[in-house]
């Protein structure tokens, strides 16, 4: 670093915290302890030590291992899409914010706890279609790190989720998009594992050659302009209820809202959120 080190020396306790911060991270308690100590000296040393640790990492990497081609292609596509969307998108960002801000009316309730206040109406339309649970077609991109043939069916995932205590059922609001006319949707979500499924009835069938539906998760730990891709899916012409597993392409720490958009075949890495068909807030 070009600047000289701070004149005042930190004590050992502060140094131990700073070094732990750059080597393995701090627990919340340790972070609070450091925050109390935090001052100009701590900040300057933290910057220097982080720089030293990173320099050691580069020095110790030697001949780095090439990144797998498939992963590289995925990251390139992700970056290009994110940059293109960012460039085009004061509007996209505003759409994302307004979409997530506009879901206050969505219903969140705990399954298996108190009786559901809307159980009669929602049970009615779900029950009407319950015999038509369909596996969703057209998952074009497998979830990261998951081998083929190992995933349970959507219906099995739904049943497994429903058997868990503390599951959330989130009623989605349908928008004015023509594809959403007369449709209903909800999310069954396990906040502990951050996994879940979406269910739809009445969503307009799509032609996969023209467009596909895509799921999105707004993670509280991430920039709300860039919701996490939850996978693409199709609605076949004869579908009644469609059950769609949410396959987040990035880890989700705290889902705050869910949305479904219409996108080009194969989906997009970053959506402009121009054709939102459903959205709901997770509390």
């Amino acid at each position, binding site marked *: 670093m070009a600047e000289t080190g701070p004149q005042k020396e930190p004590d050992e306790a502060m140094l131990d915290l700073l*070094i732990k911060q750059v080597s*393995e*991270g701090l627990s919340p308690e340790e972070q609070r302890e450091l925050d109390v100590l935090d001052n100009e000296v701590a900040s300057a040393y933290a910057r220097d030590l982080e*720089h030293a640790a990173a320099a050691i990492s580069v020095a*110790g990497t030697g001949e780095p291992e090439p990144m797998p081609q498939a992963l590289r292609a995925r990251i390139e596509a992700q970056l290009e899409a994110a940059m293109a969307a960012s460039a085009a998108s004061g509007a996209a960002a505003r759409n994302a914010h307004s979409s997530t801000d506009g879901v206050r009316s969505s219903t969140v309730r705990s399954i298996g706890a108190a009786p559901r206040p809307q159980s009669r109406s929602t049970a009615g339309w779900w029950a009407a279609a319950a015999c038509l649970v369909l596996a969703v077609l057209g998952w074009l991109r497998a979830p990261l790190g998951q081998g083929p043939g190992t995933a349970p069916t959507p219906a099995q995932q739904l049943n497994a989720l429903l058997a868990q205590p503390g599951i959330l059922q989130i009623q989605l609001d349908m928008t004015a998009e023509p594809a959403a006319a007369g449709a209903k949707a909800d999310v069954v979500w396990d906040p502990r594992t951050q996994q879940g499924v979406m269910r739809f009835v009445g969503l307009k069938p799509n032609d996969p050659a023209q467009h596909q539906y895509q799921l999105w998760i707004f993670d509280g730990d991430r920039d709300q302009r860039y919701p996490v891709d939850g996978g693409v899916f199709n609605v076949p012409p004869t579908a009644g209820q469609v059950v769609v597993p949410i396959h987040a392409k990035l880890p989700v720490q705290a889902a705050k809202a869910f949305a479904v958009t219409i996108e080009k075949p194969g989906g997009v890495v970053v959506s402009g959120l121009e054709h939102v068909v459903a959205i709901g807030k997770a509390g």
Partner: protein
Amino acid sequence: MNSTVLQRMASGDVAAVRECMDRYGALVWSLARRLSRTAADAEDAAQEIFLDIWRSAARYDASRGSDKVFVATIARRRLIDRLRKKGGEPPMEPPEALESIAWSDPATEPATAIDASHAARALQELRPEQRQVLELGLMHGLSQSEIASRLSMPLGTVKSLMRRGLMRVREYMNIEIEGVAGRADG
């Protein structure tokens, strides 16, 4: 050229993406592999890191260090954050399987990572046990407690070795950079 890649990324030049991957892909992947619990975690982490690099690219200041160390700083932040969140999960490889690190030769390190070259030179001057503790902590992602257990050392000794070792590297890097700046001024 190298700082230009980050500048172009910051300015939204989509054509810079491939160059960015050419230059930093292997570095990020190597760090992600070392500091992730599973291969799938490493893939997720690499994706997150490159988004972080793009979002942070405008903050890169060549006068404060090399672009590779800047990228490694971003990568380490993300990887440490992920390791903490995954807490008690077992590591990808058992501790006894950890490879020893092939440190770069400061004499041949390209000038574009001169701060890494200074760090490598500083490491050569450390006591072996200081270097070993830093290697296990910074390169293999072991916690101080895990290092203490692995080396059968008291935790306090591990902390002391790491503190003295990293402070020595920091001092050496500052002295070297001031020296380089002084020679350039003279």
